[in-house]
């Protein structure tokens, strides 16, 4: 219900608004803020006395009636009415029980009775499972390639395939993705080919990124997947900015950003959540709480009940999901996306999972955790096997299709690797292009110098870099 406030600066009007607080708004400032954001033409904002300043007079709670009970007094502090209490009461640092986790498929892949979930068609479910398998195979092959010395570096997504694929499946292609670096599945779902993945890892001339970034730092303008920046959590404020941009353009899309449990310690995480809430930006914050930040377990990362409780601190609606349950992930992201866009609000999703692989090829996680623990999560809580059980029981998948898929993908993957390895690297001018829109004088000069040096000392330079 819109409050028709004519431009008024008089104090009596101001007090009237406070007095008649049955207008559906909590406080006058609340009213003004809604008017500001949603219908600025109604009000000359600079003349609105309530938009910025709140009355700080004490008032009686109207519902208490005529009782002069001192306990019923209420003060209108900036931000809204606050009731008083004569008892010293601290809010506990944690609730007695941890926030429950939403899941739909049990450990064995059976649908839990009376579970709420968003129905998935056979086509989508089969694509989801196939992409999860493809991701797993791609990870294994790239990892092995690095171990053989063919790749310089790689980071796997083993154990988190459901988060990657199921969340991607629940989004629309116009939703803009701001990844951390463990979400190649989202690109895979959107159509990035195995060859394109391999090209980026080898940094060859067919790479979108023109060979400028480390492996797994994918980016695709076409698929609305923003280039991975290695710095942790810097993509969170970027995502809020993108959501703000989408909101200004009134697009039917949201921004989606991923980060890990470790990333939530960065200042950018807190600021981004705060900003998103204040700006009412349609952004999904998806946290992959996989238990480890390189060697730091979550008990050394934060002392709250995971990530989900942090949303409330910023005024953000949150949910905790079983990240290894593809169906639950799909439903949660699907619902969250609708809420984010239609209600113009951010949503925090904490997906509980486990990082089965090492942090990257530069890490050996058996040095800080037991091999048994890794093995257990890989076998007993495997997201692929759970989802496979469900689609098989729905009659959508079979052993035969499984082995067909696996052998096909493996072959394709090895071929992509082979081709990428053989492809030429980008030529020297790509060292200097795209720093600015047009290379300025100093960069042109520096390129000239490099070329000159190579010419006079050709034996000191790699032969496979075309000039």
């Amino acid at each position, binding site marked *: 219900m819109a409050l028709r406030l004519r431009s008024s600066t008089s104090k009596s009007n101001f007090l009237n608004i406070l007095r008649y607080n049955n207008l559906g708004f909590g406080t006058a400032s609340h009213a003004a803020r809604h008017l*500001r*954001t949603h219908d*600025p033409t109604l009000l*000359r*904002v*600079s003349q609105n006395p309530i*938009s*910025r300043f709140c009355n700080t007079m004490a008032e009686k709670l109207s519902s208490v009636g005529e009782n002069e009970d001192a306990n019923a007094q209420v003060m209108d502090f900036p931000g809204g009415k606050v009731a008083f209490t004569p008892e010293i009461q601290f809010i506990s640092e944690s609730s007695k029980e941890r926030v429950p986790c939403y899941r739909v498929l049990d450990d064995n892949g059976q649908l839990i009775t009376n579970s709420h979930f968003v129905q998935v068609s056979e086509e989508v479910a089969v694509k989801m499972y196939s992409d999860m398998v493809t991701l797993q195979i791609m990870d294994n092959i790239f990892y092995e390639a690095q171990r053989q010395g063919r790749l310089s570096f790689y980071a796997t997504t083993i154990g988190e395939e459901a988060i990657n694929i199921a969340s991607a499946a629940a989004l629309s292609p116009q939703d*803009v993705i*701001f990844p951390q670096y463990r979400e190649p599945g989202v690109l895979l779902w959107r159509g990035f080919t195995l060859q394109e993945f391999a090209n980026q890892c080898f940094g060859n001339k067919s*790479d*979108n*990124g*023109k060979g*400028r*970034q480390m492996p797994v*730092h994918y*980016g*695709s*303008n076409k698929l609305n997947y*923003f*280039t991975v*920046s*290695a*710095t942790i959590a*810097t*993509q*969170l*404020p*970027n*995502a*809020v*900015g*993108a959501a*703000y*941009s*989408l*909101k*200004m*353009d009134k697009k039917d899309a949201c*921004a989606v950003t991923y980060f890990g449990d470790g990333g939530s310690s960065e*200042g*950018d995480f807190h*600021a*981004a959540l*705060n*900003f998103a809430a*204040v*700006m009412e930006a349609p952004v999904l914050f998806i946290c992959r709480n996989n238990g480890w930040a390189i060697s730091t377990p979550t008990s050394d990362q934060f002392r709250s009940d995971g990530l989900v409780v942090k949303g409330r601190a910023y005024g953000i609606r949150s949910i905790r999901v079983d990240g290894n349950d593809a169906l639950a992930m799909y439903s949660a992201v699907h619902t969250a996306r609708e809420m984010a866009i239609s209600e113009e609000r951010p949503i925090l999703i904490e997906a509980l999972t486990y990082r089965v692989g090492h942090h990257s090829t530069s890490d050996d996680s058996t040095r800080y955790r037991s091999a048994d623990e890794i093995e257990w999560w890989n076998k007993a809580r495997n997201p692929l096997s759970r989802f496979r059980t469900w689609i098989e029981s729905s009659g959508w998948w079979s052993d035969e299709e499984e082995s067909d898929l696996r052998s096909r993908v493996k072959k394709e993957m090895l071929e992509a690797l082979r081709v990428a390895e053989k492809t030429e690297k980008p030529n020297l001018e790509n060292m200097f*292009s*795209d*720093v*600015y*829109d*047009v290379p*300025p*004088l*100093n960069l042109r*000069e520096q390129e000239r110098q490099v070329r000159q040096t190579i010419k006079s000392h050709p034996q000191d330079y790699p032969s496979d870099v075309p000039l």
Partner: protein
Amino acid sequence: MSAILQGAGAGAAAALSPFNSIDSNKVVAPSRSSLSVRCKRYIVAGSDDGTNQSFGSSSLVARRSQPLMIPNAVSTTKADTAASSTSSKSGHELLLFEALQEGLEEEMDRDPHVCVMGEDVGHYGGSYKVTKGLADKFGDLRVLDTPICENAFTGMGIGAAMTGLRPVIEGMNMGFLLLAFNQISNNCGMLHYTSGGQFTIPVVIRGPGGVGRQLGAEHSQRLESYFQSIPGIQMVACSTPYNAKGLMKAAIRSENPVILFEHVLLYNLKESIPDEEYICNLEEAEMVRPGEHITILTYSRMRYHVMQAAKTLVNKGYDPEVIDIRSLKPFDLHTIGNSVKKTHRVLIVEECMRTGGIGASLTAAINENFHDYLDAPVMCLSSQDVPTPYAGTLEEWTVVQPAQIVTAVEQLCQ
């Protein structure tokens, strides 16, 4: 000295009158960016018509015959306004912060993607009133008040730019942007490159910096020295209402991320600027006072100290050439080079600290490129390597004073 900075009617303006009446000749700079192409329809101060002059040419650069405005180094409301508006029929007078606001408003009118974000930029109008009135005109969403987290709103601006907007991010004081260094360096400067050119980041990051009037060490920083190494960004510093508006507009239209350095003490400078639209070239230096004996390179507030010293120097018989370098990254070595080839002596006057300042890298660049033309070592006057003290007397002595500039010139010209 403080008289210079109080804006209207500064006494030092009178000494410059001989130069006001000269038809301005601007040294032509090679067009290095797409900006020159795009803004051909407007009066572009100092940009050439697309001819690419080779940087190392020894021939005298052809001078533009079309008269362009040389704004007074010091603002004036005295009679000399006639000469300063040779290129426009009428002009209008305003203060530097108003010029910035005018430039910003014009760009926001012209392109609906331009938006502003920062602390207190909306209804408060900005701490230095550069965004005054914009929230009322364009609404809360386009002139966004953000919570206090520089890294976050800079990051937000970058994300918005990657999705198609053209944000102008205001740091309330340049010093606060140290908190945004991560986003500026890692994302703003790098993402165009690391994404293979797929994403552009046309942001403008602006704010006041420099030593003010007893603002304390944390609020008197010179960030240009810290940012200058970041690949992928451009840096410009404005010093007059004319170039403030021109640079603001150019920065917004640029496809590259641009950091626009303003100075806390220059916001109230008054000058008459043209009514018709104009842009300044982002990579070009400004010839403030042509001369023969020595090249003095400076920017931002130090320009005014230099011009005051120039007054004394002229009385003593020297003829200094004063260039406001304006473009801090990249340096306009073309204009600077031509000047060095003419005068053979260089003095750099800056507000940065001695170590690692703009002067330090400019000295290196000049020595590297123009060593053969120098008759004396490049001299650089900078602030000392100390945090800026609060006490007024101490603060005054951390900043280069006109007397020191005069002494340095006399030394160099022996």
